[in-house]
C-alpha cells in the first residue's frame, strides 16, 4: 500500500479524474473530500461490506419455511 502524508487542504490525485482532499484532521478523525466521476461509486467500506454480507446471508436456502412464504401456513 502506498502511504502518503498530507496536511489539511492538500490533495491526492488518483488517475486523471479522482481527487481526495484532506479537509480537516482532528485526533483520530479525518474529514475527507472526494471528487470522482459520477459513475465511480464511493462508499464507506464498512457499509459496502455490510451489503455484501447481507446479500450472502440472503441467499441461504429457504425451503424449510416455504409454506409460510407461500401463505399456506400462518405463524
Amino acid at each position, binding site marked *: 500500500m502506498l502511504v502518503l502524508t498530507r496536511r489539511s487542504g492538500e490533495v491526492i490525485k488518483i488517475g486523471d479524474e479522482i481527487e481526495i482532499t484532506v479537509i480537516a484532521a482532528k485526533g483520530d478523525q479525518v474529514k475527507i473530500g472526494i471528487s470522482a466521476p*459520477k*459513475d465511480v*461509486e464511493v*462508499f464507506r467500506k464498512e*457499509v*459496502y461490506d*455490510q*451489503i*455484501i*454480507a*447481507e*446479500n*450472502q*446471508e*440472503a*441467499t*441461504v*436456502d*429457504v*425451503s*424449510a*419455511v*416455504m409454506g*409460510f*412464504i*407461500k*401463505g399456506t401456513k400462518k*405463524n
Partner: protein
Amino acid sequence: MKINTKYHGERLINENEIITFPNAIPGFQDEKEFIVLSLDEDQEFLVLQSVANSQLAFIMTSPFRFFKEYDFTLDDFVVELLKIESEKDIHVFSILTVQDPFDKTTVNLQAPIVINTKNKLAKQVILNQPDYRTKHPLFSKKKHKVVKG
C-alpha cells in the same frame, strides 16, 4: 431457453424476461443476469433467480407493502445507468433475509433492487440514508413504520 432454478425446478424462459445488472450485485460480481419468478399467488414474495447459477436466488418483496413510508431518491448516475425515462417504468424490491421461524425474517431497506421494466436494466442501489439499514424486521409490531435507528 431452459434454466435450472433454486425453487422452481427446470424452467423455460424467454430471453426478453432476463434482467441485466450491468454492475452486478455486491458480493456476486460474476452474476449479471437474473429473472424474477413468483413464489405465491399474490406475488407478495418473488425470487430473483440467477440465470447462470441455479443455486443463487434471492427472495424479494415490495418494500412499500410492509413499509408504507419507504422513500428514497435515485442518484443521477443510477438514472443514467439504467436509462430511466419515467418513474412509472421502475419497480423497486427489497431483498429478504429469510429466517426460520419465518416471522424473524428481516428486510434490507438500505440496498433496494431497482429495475427499469422497460429495458430490463437493474441495480442494487446502496442508500446513504441513516433510517434505512440492512435488517429491518419484516413483521415487527409497528408493522407499517420504519423504526428509526
